[in-house]
């Protein structure tokens, strides 16, 4: 259980899978989407509503209800909550919710664009730390590129002001970005700066293959589709540090590869965690908003959702014929981002193959040397031989095997 033991007190990290000696708690992590509103208007965003959308604001959970949800999660053993949005700092009661979470013994993960970080809020985070690094989305290193993405005048200065306040107060944070044509030229500069952030122990992560809008807004989806890189282009970006990429993806694939059959939920959605949207709907995954997978918290409890509703959701089987003939038989399942949430966003169903992600997975498989040109993974019979020893792979040999063709 411990990574560093002293004679009497054990220091533990809640990141460790071995934290629990006996049973895991019913809910070990909770995501709370405090609002769908955002003060930015990012081109690629899969959720944001305008900050001044009063109808959305009125529908949002009250302070008391969010506090009650957090309290119930704590009673179920929850150790960490992620406050996300939209921009969670738009909530006027954010500080109260944050303090409630911390005082009930939760670690807090905050997803933010940092534009609304004030000196007082940075001081609060310094005094009562979230115990998890804040995750800040940075959309560019220059006003032109940044605001070409956010489409919000003044957002560049506001974000960097917030970031510097956190740096001054030594509040731990990490930065991440989305790869877009508007900020593509900033990548090297961004990574060089990110390396100076004291809490960054790796390169920043990027959203490369952009998710469609979680409420299936078709106008928004047309914009997002136009921003998406071609599979080869996106994979080339991901694999630009080839040895690191091959090692990470190879290790991951060796654990999570093989045909899933007709089981739709090969991921951990609804296992030991839950997501609450801005209006009180509980979901097994924050991106999955198909009606079959939603539980109305106003008519029940978090405990009921995780003990009875989620297990039923996870039993849902694929019925789509195309899915059964392709995805169900495809050994790239662990490599492919096809999942019920993506099927929902793209097609409004739980089990329709998403060709974009299929092409990406096939491109990555070719880079890993698992597929030849024009091969379809679901037609490969000797996949076990191909993935053998993927985790102990000789990366030099793998680089020689790897092919872009």
């Amino acid at each position, binding site marked *: 259980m*411990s990574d560093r033991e002293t004679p009497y*007190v054990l220091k*533990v990290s809640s990141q460790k899978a071995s934290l629990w000696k006996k049973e895991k708690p019913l809910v070990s992590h909770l995501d709370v989407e405090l609002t769908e509103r955002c003060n930015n208007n990012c081109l690629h965003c899969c959720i944001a509503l305008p900050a001044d959308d009063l109808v959305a604001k009125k529908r949002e959970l009250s302070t008391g209800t969010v506090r009650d949800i957090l309290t119930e999660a*704590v009673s179920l053993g929850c150790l960490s909550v992620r406050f996300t949005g939209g921009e969670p700092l738009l909530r006027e009661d954010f500080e109260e919710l944050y303090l409630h979470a911390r005082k009930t013994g939760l*670690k807090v993960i905050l997803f933010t664009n940092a534009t609304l970080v004030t000196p007082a809020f940075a001081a609060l985070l310094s*005094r009562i*730390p979230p*115990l*998890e690094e804040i995750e800040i989305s940075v959309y560019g290193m220059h006003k032109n590129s940044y605001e070409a993405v956010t489409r919000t005048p003044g957002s560049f200065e506001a974000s960097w002001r917030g970031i510097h306040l956190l740096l001054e107060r030594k509040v731990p944070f990490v930065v991440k970005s989305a790869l877009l044509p508007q900020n593509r030229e900033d990548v090297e500069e961004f990574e060089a700066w990110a390396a100076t952030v004291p809490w960054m122990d790796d390169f920043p992560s990027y959203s490369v293959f952009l998710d469609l809008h979680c409420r299936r807004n078709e106008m928004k989806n047309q914009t997002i589709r136009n921003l998406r890189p071609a599979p080869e282009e996106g994979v080339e970006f991901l694999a630009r540090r080839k040895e690191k990429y091959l090692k990470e993806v190879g290790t991951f694939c060796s654990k999570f590869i093989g045909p899933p059959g007709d089981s739709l939920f090969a991921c951990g959605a609804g296992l030991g965690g839950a997501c609450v949207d801005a209006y009180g709907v509980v979901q097994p995954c924050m991106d999955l908003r198909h009606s079959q997978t939603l539980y109305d918290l106003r008519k029940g409890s978090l405990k009921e959702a995780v003990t009875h509703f989620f297990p039923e959701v996870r039993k849902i089987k694929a019925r789509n014929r195309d899915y059964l003939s392709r995805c169900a038989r495809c050994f790239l399942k662990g490599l492919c981002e096809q999942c019920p949430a993506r099927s929902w966003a793209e097609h409004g169903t739980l089990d329709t193959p998403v060709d974009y992600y299929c092409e990406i997975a096939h491109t990555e498989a070719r880079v890993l040397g698992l597929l030849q040109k024009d091969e379809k993974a679901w037609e490969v019979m000797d996949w076990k031989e191909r993935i053998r020893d993927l985790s102990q792979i000789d990366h030099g040999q793998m680089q020689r095997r790897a092919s872009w063709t």
Partner: protein
Amino acid sequence: MDVEARLDAVYAPSEDIVARSIEGELIIVPLVAGIGDFEDELYSLNETGKAVWDRLDGKKSLKEVLAELSAEFDAPAGEIEKDLIGLVEELLRRRILVAVG
């Protein structure tokens, strides 16, 4: 900060932490900065530590706690005292525990 534990003193959990019991584990979550060596650090106590922690209620003196432990574990107080003092001093040093009064 005085981190020397005294048998005649009374100790209680600090208000700078939140102590939680989750699935049989005692998890101590820092509330304010500076409790842990690292920002994401939590603490736990083993079974013996938990038996001590449960008695550090801001009412009993450490001497009374020692007597209770001696009876519960059927061991001479002299054998338990060193571990009890060691644990309390470590908790005091980490600001997880405070002296009362």
